[in-house]
């Protein structure tokens, strides 16, 4: 059974259509990369998966998305519960101006948990998961903004994981990081996929080929090709894909 199914999704911001008849399926515990030139709709597609687009007035979706076999756009769906099952990490790290501890604890507090020792344990566990524990264990109650960019991004991942999602959406998570932090992040993604299903938007094709199991190429809101990564990069079936990955693509 697929973890995520995107079924014939069309998406509009106001009157301009941004996604055209997208059909995708993602298996559990895999990393799926979404690549394409800027403006192709990959971030929009990502946000379709946790209904974050709804925060923008005038947005409108046709079609359906199913997670664990159940539609997430049904009228009985609690969007807040959905977002707790689908976590998101953003391009630029955005830790809250609070302590490291409180950042990770945030997800628990909004679930109504404030049992001190439970939170302590969870904080440690998620920080270990993102390989940040050793670096911050003495600074738990210091401001999160004092951490380096790479650490902040891992903190944001820990924060998202504390809510115990089953899916993790990552929108160009390494684009504001230096190469070493990026490498650490990619290692982390590899570790995390054993527990979570990950969808990764990136404009870095090497990153896509290094980290993902399957890759999707979007262009102007259309899904051009979707295949397992090895095939995708060595023997793409579409000419546009070939042009894009070899850099011959003209961005109109």
């Amino acid at each position: 059974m697929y973890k995520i199914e995107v079924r014939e999704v069309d998406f509009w911001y106001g009157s301009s259509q941004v996604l055209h008849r997208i059909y995708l399926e993602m298996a559990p515990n895999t990393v799926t990369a979404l690549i394409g030139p800027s403006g192709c709709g990959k971030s929009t597609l990502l946000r379709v998966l946790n209904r974050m687009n709804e925060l923008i007035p005038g947005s409108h979706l046709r079609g359906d998305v199913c997670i664990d076999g159940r539609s997430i756009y049904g009228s009985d769906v609690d969007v807040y519960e959905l977002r707790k099952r689908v976590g998101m990490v953003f391009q630029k790290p955005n830790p809250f101006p609070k302590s490291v501890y409180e950042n990770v604890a945030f997800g628990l507090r909004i679930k109504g948990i404030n049992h001190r020792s439970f939170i302590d344990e969870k904080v440690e566990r998620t920080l270990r998961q993102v390989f940040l524990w050793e670096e911050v264990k003495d600074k738990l109650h210091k401001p999160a903004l004092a951490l380096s960019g790479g650490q902040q991004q891992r903190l944001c991942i820990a924060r998202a994981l504390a809510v115990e999602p089953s899916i993790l959406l990552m929108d160009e998570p390494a684009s504001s990081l230096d190469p070493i932090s990026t490498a650490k992040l990619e290692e982390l993604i590899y570790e995390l996929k054993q527990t979570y299903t990950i969808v990764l938007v990136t404009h870095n094709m090497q990153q896509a080929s290094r980290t993902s199991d399957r890759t999707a190429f979007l262009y102007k809101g259309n899904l051009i090709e979707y295949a397992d990564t090895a095939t995708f990069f060595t023997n793409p079936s579409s000419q546009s894909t070939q042009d894009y990955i070899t850099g011959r693509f003209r961005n109109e």
Partner: protein
Amino acid sequence: MKRPAEKLIEALLQLSGWLTLGITFSVIGVLLVNAWGFFSSIPLLDFLLGTRWTPFSEQQAFGMWPLLLGTLLTALLAMALALPLGLLISIYLSEYANSSWRQVARPALDLLSAIPTVVYGFLALVFVTPALQFFFPGIERFNALSPGLVMGFMILPIITSISEDAMRSVPANLREAAFAMGASRWQVAWRVVLPAAFNGVTAAVILAFSRALGETMIVSIAAGQQPSFTLNPTVAIQTASSYIIQISLGDVSRSGTEYNTIFAVGIGLFVLTFALNNLSYWLRNRFKQIQA
């Protein structure tokens, strides 16, 4: 090449800049000089520690506490109304309301602060006090609760406008992160935006409190003229500012210790509001620094 006329103009401009400093120094100077006259005959400790203020009775007493308590009481009552209401309204306008509603609400709130304070005082006496007496028969005609509540409305716009600005300037990506974790709008507002805007909001609260301390007409009309060492909101009291008005309107001879009490009281009021205003300013700047 600057013409001489231009040099003159620029000199005048410089002068006007100095003028603003001059005003502050004049205020401090006037207060100090005349308060000096007061404190050279009345020991400072009597003023600072005394609990009776009766400069015009047989048994003269010059303790500042009755006036201080009266001032604090009315200001705190005002804050008791304005703080929760102002905070909630700011959250609503910043995080919930759509822009057309905000465009109506904001000017309406600003209008509250444009109303002359005599009008508020009048309403406190004529409308609020009888209403309070209806619900709580024990309240005297002059009391602290009525002007306190009315002052709360007067200072409400101070809290809402500054707090709302502070909250709206919290970056959108923080809200996004919280929403993405499944936080509700309330949780985002209360647990992310408000803490992030904390400095700005506190600055607003302090400023509003300072304004309430210095307010004159509302209390002069509705609070009474009986300095007493009490925190009871149902009885008549007197604040520092309304004492100054009372003496100014009276026939006290223009020299002498009794008259100089208004400068002693004035300098106390000035010091208090000055300290609070500067604290508020410092907090707002720190907030802007944290933003950047």
